[in-house]
């Protein structure tokens, strides 16, 4: 089993590294969006797949990271590198504050609070004209010339996302990650073995927010502009759909989901009237018929095949 996933991973890495060669710029940008989406979805899954918390406000931190980078570069005049690095603690503090309140709620209340905070920040971004330029958003945020071409920015994104993915993988495999999973599986039992639920949920929230913020920052200089739509609740639905599609119970599920999602996004067109509708339909379909997502489904098939071959070997 491990061998298969290692092979699949290496194939994916090779494809990702080699991608820009001989490929149209449009597709390089698509791949770039995929990478950003994958990180966004992975950040969501820290809360959902690992801690059992359904957040409908992931775009809040995506947006905070995005705006932080934009404002630091445009209003504070900082260099891209410095602004990018500084956007991380800004997102972390925001996630810390919002997470403090959200972690005191469970299940439904948690989801509602994340949605509510998301709406709050969306309103702030839309109305606080003096700082955020309101609905117009902030334009002309260009990456440094070293990352000026689509290919170069793609490799930059790839590097950052790969680093973050590795960090998230390590976190998932650490005792901290195991503790989160115990909270997901059985909060009562977890508490009975001495785990402070509120604290860990809070920390999971901060981790999740930070990585969403990095995705947001990557998006800003990819898109060259940032607008309040990046904080809208429908944006928060995107990592939900990606994760459900790919499977919340596999580490790589959100990545698979992001790939499928980005693929369809550009065949259906993001700005058509039916974008939210399509996302809703996908959610309904996956929840009803494929709760493990595509990734979960594939995993089950592989498991079944492996068990079958084991049985076969034992019978021989």
């Amino acid at each position: 089993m491990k061998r298969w996933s290692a092979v699949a991973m290496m194939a994916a890495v090779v494809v990702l590294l080699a991608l820009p060669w001989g490929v149209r710029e449009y597709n390089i940008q698509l791949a770039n969006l995929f990478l950003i989406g994958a990180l966004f979805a992975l950040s969501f899954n820290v809360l959902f797949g690992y801690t059992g918390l359904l957040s409908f406000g992931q775009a809040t931190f995506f947006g905070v990271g995005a705006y932080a980078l934009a404002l630091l570069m445009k209003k504070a005049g900082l260099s891209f590198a410095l602004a990018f690095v500084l956007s991380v603690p800004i997102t972390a503090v925001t996630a810390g504050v919002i997470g403090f309140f959200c972690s005191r709620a469970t299940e439904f209340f948690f989801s509602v609070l994340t949605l509510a905070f998301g709406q709050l920040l969306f309103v702030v971004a839309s109305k606080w004209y003096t700082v955020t330029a309101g609905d117009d958003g902030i334009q002309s945020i260009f990456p440094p010339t070293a990352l000026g071409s689509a290919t170069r920015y793609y490799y930059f994104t790839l590097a950052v996302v790969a680093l973050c993915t590795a960090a998230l993988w390590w976190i998932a495999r650490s005792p901290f990650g195991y503790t989160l999973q115990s909270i997901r599986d059985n909060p009562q039992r977890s508490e009975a073995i001495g785990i402070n639920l509120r604290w860990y949920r809070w920390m999971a929230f901060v981790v999740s927010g930070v990585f969403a913020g990095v995705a947001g920052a990557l998006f800003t200089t990819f898109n060259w502009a940032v607008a309040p739509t990046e904080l809208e609740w429908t944006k928060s639905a995107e990592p939900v759909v990606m994760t459900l599609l790919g499977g919340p119970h596999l580490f790589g599920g959100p990545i698979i989901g992001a790939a499928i999602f980005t693929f369809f996004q550009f065949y259906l067109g993001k700005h058509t009237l039916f974008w939210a509708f399509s996302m809703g339909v996908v959610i309904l379909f996956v929840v009803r018929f494929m709760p493990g997502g595509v990734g979960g489904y594939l995993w089950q098939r592989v498991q079944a095949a492996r068990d079958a071959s084991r049985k076969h070997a034992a019978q021989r």
Partner: protein
Amino acid sequence: MTLSGFVNQFVSGLTFGMVLFLLALGLVLIFGVMRVVNFAHGSLYMVGAFTGYFVWEWLKGMTGSFWVSVIVAGLLVAALGLVLEYMLRPLYAREHSDQILFTYGCVLIIGDLVKWLWGGQYHSVPRPPGFQGRIELGGVVLPTYYLLVIGVGVATGLGLWLLLARTKLGKIIRAAVADREMVGILGIRLPRLFAGVFGIGAFLAGAAGMLAAPLGSIGSGMDVEIIVAVFAVVIVGGMGSFLGAALASLIIGEVYSFGILVLPAAAQVFMFLVMVVVLVVRPQGLIGAPER
């Protein structure tokens, strides 16, 4: 602030609170009996507003057309609610997150459908004939429509209380809230009960949508705006309590109304503050039972 001004704001808040109350009633009813949180409740409200508006337009000139459209809106949304409930059925046995995700998906779908059917612009709905003016009560001038909405809200509250306390259906509902499995064992057909309850909740949401339409404007962002306020009510009042919903609706309505005076662009902030404070201090709501 003058006394007259204060009373004006208070009544305005009470009116908004009544709309929230109608919505919260449905939500609490659905949750109490079915243990399902209907994220799509705000969407039902929005559909009610739009269908009501267009029925009213279509019936223009007919006497009582406004009231007809309120009822029709309620009925149409109740039908939509029954469809939703039917689709939700296979998920009752599943984890709560699956149910939440399902209704969340419905919000996305309904939101886009409304935009497609009726466009994304805002419409304003005039008040019905007979209630377009103002009335003076003890030196304070109040719009008559506000008083009407308050009256409807109180009447509905009383009506529901009577339903729960005196009728057979009400007894079944109360029993189901206390112990769902027992009710099933007693031979009451749960699917029918669930459908009925969801239908009633949806009717209330749809009718509230049209009833509230003349108070502001209707548009495609209504669903999320109102659902956050309704959730605030339910969080403050507790998920299992009708009385809590009533009290909390009043509180949230007033907080919003007076909040507009302080921060006109973002009165929602104050609703948030209340919601957050209650969650920190008393997570089970002011009256609701502790939910772990």
